[in-house]
């Protein structure tokens, strides 16, 4: 469990993190979203015990990160941004070093190491030095390092940054597999990731929490939520038919592929009505889809709205 209470970090006059309060329970995977420089990494560094908070407090599994730093650090597995590791070391050597630093008892050490190596598919590179590995492998070594002591809390700063789609998928599967009994915080600016791994998302900008909800709730804030999009050969007729539906608030035609999107008035489902209208006019539809909502649009609205407010 992770709990922060008005956690803040200042550098001189600059406030990087401004009194952030939240609580994450075991079984939750919290996605930290926000533009670059929003304070995501700083917050994670404070929880992981690398930076001392300027104000407020954070506890990990009940241990205060400032007053009981060693106990707090023991219960955390942390992947710093960029997955740093000692390049001149071999993978096995490096993981054994971490295991020793973590004080893993001798009887389970072998098992824990094998488990971490197996989960990240590192068997083939165990004797290679980390410097010679590809970016994807280095990231996996960083992840293996974070889970080798089977921590209750995992803090992963951009775990999939720089990975190819297959590797991203593997890492997400790994996070999902570990989610059941752990408390996990993942920072990312890849929004599709939120869907894939998180059951809760916090959007931060300028050091403050702007939204804290499930990914589905966030999507429901999108203009596209419950919108209907379709593609057809007869764009003009379709547009005409849609505009006569009472609950349709607006219609947009994509200039590039002529895809039509009909936006509903708030809280009014329009899918059935659209379907009826098209059938009634005998308009041939190549494709018809109900939109769930677009996270990237919600993300932009929330974070940029904040920036405009601040400027005003």
């Amino acid at each position, binding site marked *: 469990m992770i709990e922060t209470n008005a956690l803040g970090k200042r550098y001189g006059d600059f406030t990087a993190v401004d009194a952030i309060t939240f609580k994450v329970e075991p079984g939750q995977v919290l996605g930290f979203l926000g533009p670059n420089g929003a304070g995501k990494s700083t917050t994670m560094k404070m929880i992981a015990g690398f930076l001392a908070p300027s104000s407020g407090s954070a506890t990990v599994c009940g241990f205060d990160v400032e007053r009981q730093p060693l106990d707090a650090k023991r219960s955390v597995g942390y992947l*710093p*941004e960029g997955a740093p590791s000692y390049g001149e070391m071999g993978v096995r050597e490096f993981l054994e070093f971490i295991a020793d630093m973590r*004080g893993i008892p001798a009887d389970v050490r072998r098992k824990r190491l094998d488990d971490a190596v197996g989960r990240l598919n590192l068997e083939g590179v165990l004797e290679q030095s980390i410097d010679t590995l590809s970016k994807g492998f280095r990231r996996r070594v960083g992840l293996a390092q974070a889970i080798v002591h089977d921590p209750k809390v995992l803090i992963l700063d951009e775990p999939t940054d720089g990975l190819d789609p297959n590797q991203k998928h593997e890492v997400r599967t790994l996070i999902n597999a570990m989610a059941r009994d752990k408390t996990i915080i993942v920072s990312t600016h890849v929004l599709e990731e939120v869907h894939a791994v998180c059951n809760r998302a916090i959007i931060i900008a300028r050091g403050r929490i702007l939204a804290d909800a499930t990914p589905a709730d966030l999507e429901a804030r999108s203009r596209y939520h419950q919108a209907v999009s379709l593609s057809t050969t007869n764009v003009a007729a379709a547009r005409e038919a849609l505009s006569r539906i009472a609950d349709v608030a607006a219609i947009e035609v994509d200039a590039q592929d002529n895809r039509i999107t009909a936006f509903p008035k708030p809280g009014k489902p329009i899918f059935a009505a659209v379907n009826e209208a098209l059938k009634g006019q005998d308009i041939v539809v190549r494709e018809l889809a109900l939109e769930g909502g677009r996270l990237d649009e919600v993300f932009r609205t929330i974070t940029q709205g904040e920036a405009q407010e601040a400027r005003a």
Partner: protein
Amino acid sequence: MKPTLTVFRRELRSYFATPVAYVFIVIFLVLSSAFTFYLGNLYERGQADLMPFFSFHPWLYLFLVPAVSMRLWSEERKSGTIELLLTLPVTMWQAVLGKFLAAWAFIAIALVLTFPLWITVNYLGDPDNGVILASYIGSLLMAGAFLAIGSCISAATRNQVVAFILTVVACFVLVMAGFPLVLDAFSAWAPQGLVDAIASLSFLTHFASISKGVIDLRDLLYFALMIGFWLYASAIVIDLKKAD
């Protein structure tokens, strides 16, 4: 204690993972022997002792120890591993001490490898081995003090070259603290007490008295305090600078 040992082992092993360690040891051995035989005239003096060998150590360390210490923390900061290290369950002290001891052990290894010189003088004559042992201890202590200074300066910058140069300068001032070169800069304006205090900080004076074979508690204490102070300063600097 165990984390200190783990940090120590990792760090020491990392020295030998690259050719740097071997290059360092070879340069140290070549230079220390060259100085001993050519500048120190070991043979011509007609005395079986290692005085000519040890008297060049302060000057040798002046350039070689900063080369070892420059990477201690600046590399950790540059590569970001400092974040990894300090979020492991280890106190700042254990990390600082573990890394320092590893660098010190590395220099001790280089120093031990000068044993052929010791065999040579024992073969040639009948030296006072007590004095030689004391000199070795003094030399190692002095290297430790150089290293502790280097550790602190290395913690202050990510740039290893900057760390090297600043450490050379700082060590040079401390080596020369008992000489007019440094003292003249103070004697014009500072009270006599301060000038005397600065003069008593000189590495050379303390090393010279140990290498005469007199292990005085004050000299040991001087080096111990020097190491302790600079390591303490390292911990503070790391704490202050780790964020940027």
